[in-house]
Every structure is written in structure tokens, then in C-alpha cells.
């Protein structure tokens, strides 16, 4: 991901219009998409993505050009999203979805009921509504990790920086999110 060069950083600190347009054009829609992916409505996501960029510009004095702009912006988005969640369930140390996952293997670690590869042609079109409902059912932190790793394509280390989690725990949360989505799609008859 691109870093901010010193010249652009100076221009942004002076609120240079051209520099502002460049940074907004590059990141606003991506922030909006991430906010929507995290479960915010159209209106909330629009307001939230604007709010993130305003905060970014206002906090430029603390921003070191060495950091990735996108990682910094997603960090602001994460904090603002947390402020807006009415209630945020704590991420439990032991998630029952892991027991569901482990129950699919015998004592030698082999599949008891082997998974079936999805039909690629039919999958995406038919799954749209099902997947939307299943994503809505994810706990907030798992949903954020899934969004950052799977959609925004941040590395585990970058996602860890954004969410203040270790790389190992990001892996655990991604695994839980994926297994929860898989179990949900199985219940809906989309995945076997």
C-alpha cells in the first residue's frame, strides 16, 4: 500500500485543495465500502467515511509519513465505528464455533463428513442474499477482521495494527468468521 510522501503531507497540512481531492478520491469510496461491509446503513456509511477523512486531516500533525495511509484511515474508522455501536459484545476467549468446527473431524484429525466443493457458476449469484444475512450475523470484531483481511486485503499484521490485536489473534478471528459464515451458509442449504 502507498505511503504518503513528504510533499503531499505538507500540502495536506496546508489544506491544499488539489492534495485534498487526491486523497479523498483515493480513499473515500473504499472507506464507505468498508463501513457498509461492517454493517452501517447507506446514510451512516456516508457520514462515517466523511468523518474519518475529516479526522485524518485534523490529525495530520500526529501522522508520520512512514505509516500506510490506508492502515491509518482504517484505524480511525475502527475507533469511530466502535463509538457508534450501541452495544458491542465482547469477543469471547472460547467461541462455540470452534467446537462446531472441531466436531467435523475424528480423533485422527480426518474429516467425518467431508465438505463439498461449491459450484462456482451457481455460487455468487444465488448466494448474494444468503451471504448478506450470514455476514450480518457475525460478531462485530470478527466482521471487521473479515472485512479488512478478505475484502480490503490487508495483511494480518496491518489488520492487527488497525484493531490493536496480535497477528495470531487476527488469524483466530478470521477463522471464527469464516467458520461461522460456512455454518450459516450450510444451514441455508448453500454450502455442504
Amino acid at each position, binding site marked *: 500500500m502507498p505511503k504518503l510522501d513528504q510533499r503531499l503531507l505538507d500540502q495536506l497540512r496546508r489544506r491544499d485543495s488539489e492534495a485534498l481531492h487526491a486523497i479523498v478520491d483515493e480513499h473515500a469510496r473504499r472507506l464507505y*465500502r468498508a463501513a457498509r461491509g461492517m454493517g452501517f446503513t447507506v446514510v451512516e456509511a456516508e457520514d462515517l467515511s466523511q468523518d474519518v477523512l475529516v479526522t485524518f486531516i485534523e490529525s495530520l500533525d500526529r501522522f508520520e509519513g512512514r505509516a500506510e495511509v490506508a492502515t491509518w484511515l482504517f484505524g480511525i474508522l475502527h475507533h469511530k465505528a466502535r463509538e457508534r455501536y450501541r452495544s458491542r459484545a465482547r469477543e469471547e476467549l472460547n467461541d462455540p464455533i470452534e467446537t462446531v468446527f472441531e466436531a467435523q473431524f475424528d480423533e485422527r484429525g480426518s474429516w467425518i463428513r467431508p465438505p463439498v466443493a461449491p459450484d462456482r457458476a451457481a455460487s455468487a449469484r444465488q448466494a448474494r442474499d444468503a*451471504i448478506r444475512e450470514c455476514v450480518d450475523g457475525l460478531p462485530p470484531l470478527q466482521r471487521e477482521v473479515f472485512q479488512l483481511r478478505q475484502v480490503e486485503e490487508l495483511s494480518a499484521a496491518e489488520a492487527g495494527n488497525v484493531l490493536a490485536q496480535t497477528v495470531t489473534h487476527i488469524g483466530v478471528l478470521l477463522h471464527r468468521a469464516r467458520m461461522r459464515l460456512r455454518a450459516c451458509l450450510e444451514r441455508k442449504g448453500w454450502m455442504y
Partner: protein
Amino acid sequence: MLTCIEVSTLVSTGGLDDAPLMRKLGVVLHLAMCRHCRAFRRQVAAIGRAVRELNAAYEAEPPSGFEAAVVQRVLR
């Protein structure tokens, strides 16, 4: 020899990226021999694809003046 639960966990956590070379090789070998774990990996990939397509639709939602409105708010 890695087991199915070890391989599928590595696939699902994304832990393969940072795994030592020998472990990566072990996973590649296991996947070459185990159609069940290959099916699981395809399921994980299909879920990712479906969510990315959902998000692509989100990206198209803001109206054309969205970016200009953001700049206006920043300059306010």
C-alpha cells in the same frame, strides 16, 4: 504428515502466509492428496468471493458528487 484438521485450520486462519517453508510444503502435499481439504479450501475461497462481490455493490452506492462533498466537509 499433517492432518485434515491442521491443514484446514491453517487455510482458514490465513496462517499459511507466515508458516515455515517445511509446513507450507506439508500443506501443499496434503492438498495434492486430499480432495476433502481441497473442497474445504474452495469453500473458503467461494465465501470470500461472494463477500467481495457484495462489497463491490456497496462501492457503487455513493452518488457522483460524493467525493466533492467530502472535500467540502474537510474544508469547512
